[in-house]
């Protein structure tokens, strides 16, 4: 990928707090116009990374670029082109939502007032705060603060939107609205976001990076990640006990096939479930079912196992911890 196509790129970005190494040599590549999910367990270094990108923290080592500008030397210019939603958005409690948005807009625009008012109204409408726009923020719920946070992050038409847990504190409808907003924004901006809600990631993201214990574990397009590491798994449910002779024979026969890499068998009542990992999907398609039937087994369920991001995430995290 050409460096001009990257919105965020970091080289060996590291941050230590005393003896604690929060981020260890992160090399991140975020392509333009992508919805980039930045995942990891609590304390993995996600928020630290965002704060380093924004200039709120200074790296111990390494550096990076956002929109072609250096995160250390051109931080203010970078912040003029991005929008940011903090993990726990905090605003001036005495201000109303409208005043907060106008205050935010004034960091970018000197005028005219009519245009600023129009943009503020658009943002209020976008996040559904019409009824509360003129009330002081001190009376806002967590979800309303989150909505306001999204509105203020987007008020300057950012080229890059950095969202730290955008759907946190939101009810299901609010969550859906946020995903819709993200999908809409992707036409003209790149979105870099952290979340714990992996369903959302699978729905809207096109790039995923996973960090654990301050290290980048993987970074890939979501299709690639969901496709797995090469092995395809078939999930098969058989009637009968694993100790039955016919099941045991079939197990041996299937396991001997050159295209079968592993079988994970599990007994569930009167049924046996196999997770058969194969290296050659075509061979498995042609032969696996035939082998089972010819062994006289009664197959109650047979299908290619669909990977979901949650499983992949946990597998990757577990592998990285070993």
């Amino acid at each position, binding site marked *: 990928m050409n460096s001009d196509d990257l919105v965020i790129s970091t080289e060996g970005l590291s941050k230590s707090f005393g003896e604690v190494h929060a981020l260890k040599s992160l090399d991140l590549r975020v392509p333009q116009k992508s919805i980039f999910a930045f995942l990891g367990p609590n304390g993995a270094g996600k928020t630290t990374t965002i704060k380093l990108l924004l200039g709120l923290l200074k790296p111990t080592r390494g550096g990076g670029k956002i929109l072609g500008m250096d995160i250390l030397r051109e931080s203010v210019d970078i*912040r003029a*082109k991005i929008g940011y939603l903090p993990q726990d958005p905090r605003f001036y409690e005495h201000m109303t939502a409208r005043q907060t948005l106008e205050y935010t807009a004034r960091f970018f625009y000197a005028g005219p007032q009519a*245009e600023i008012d129009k943009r503020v109204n658009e943002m209020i409408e976008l996040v559904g705060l019409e009824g509360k726009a003129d009330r002081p923020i001190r009376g806002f719920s967590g979800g309303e603060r989150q909505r306001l946070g999204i509105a203020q992050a987007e008020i300057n038409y950012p*080229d890059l939107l950095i969202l730290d847990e955008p759907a946190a504190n939101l009810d299901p409808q609010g969550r859906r609205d946020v995903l819709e907003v993200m999908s809409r924004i992707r036409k003209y901006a790149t979105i870099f976001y952290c979340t714990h809600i992996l369903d959302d990631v699978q729905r809207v993201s096109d790039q995923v990076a996973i960090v654990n214990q301050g290290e980048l574990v993987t970074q890939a397009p979501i299709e690639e990640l969901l496709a797995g590491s090469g092995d395809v798994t078939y999930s098969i449910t058989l009637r009968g006990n694993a100790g039955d002779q016919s099941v045991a024979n079939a197990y041996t026969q299937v396991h001997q096939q050159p295209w079968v890499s592993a079988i994970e068998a599990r007994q569930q009542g009167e049924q046996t479930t196999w997770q058969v990992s194969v290296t050659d999907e075509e061979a498995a398609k042609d032969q696996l079912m035939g082998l089972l039937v010819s062994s006289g087994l009664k197959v109650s369920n047979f299908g290619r196992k669909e990977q979901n991001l949650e499983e992949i995430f946990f597998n990757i995290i577990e592998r990285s911890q070993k």
Partner: protein
Amino acid sequence: MSANASGQFQLVKEKGWRRGLGNMSQGEYSAWFKSSRWWKQLIIWFAIINGMMGTMIYATAQAAKTGNDGPPMFFMYGLFGGMCVAFGVMIIMQRVIVGEKRSGTAAWVLSKPVTRTAFVVSRLVVNSIAILLTSVIVPGVVFYISLGLFSDLGWLSPLGFIAALLIFSLHTFYWVALVLMMGTLSESSSVVIAVPMTLFLAFWMGPGLIPGLNYISPLLLTFSPDPDNINSVAASFMSGEPVFSWLPVISTVVFSIIFIAVAIWRFNRQEF
């Protein structure tokens, strides 16, 4: 800016360290003057300074009837307009930077195109103006008029009184700068208030132990802990007497500048 941005907007033109200064100052100004804060402060200081000085003027008039001296007017004004305001500044300013650091609003503002220097300067300038207006200028003018109308001292020299008000302002600014600096150095409101209070007491009691301390003490600008021997700088201006030394004025200016420089230096290295 992205392709769908309206070209109708005029972009902010501030450059260098001033980036964001106008908007942050406007925000601070609104917090003071577009809320009840300014007039509440004004009432408090009117009650403390003008209430007490009104009582002094009345007591002086009563004492004169019996042929006695009244309370030392300029000393008392220095005490309420100087000492009380210094403590007031510590209370008003204690959460200005620390509160924002702890609540997370500082991190939010600093995620916008602003410089940290502009952040500190906006807090310094607007709070200084608001505190000076509500606790020095307005009560001072009311005191001046009260003296002219109701006391035997009559109308003081306007130039002398303006000079005295400037000295009161410098004294107040010193404490504003000190508390602001403490806000950048500490994460605790208690520390932010404790250090200036300790320093104040040291200046109050220290000259008895270290005589030279008077010459660098900001306290000597507005009131003298030892009025029989030394007049405060402000009292000298009001009474038209020569100032005992300019060193307290110079050292207060120098220390105020140092406090501001340290505050900016520290805040630029702070992590959020």
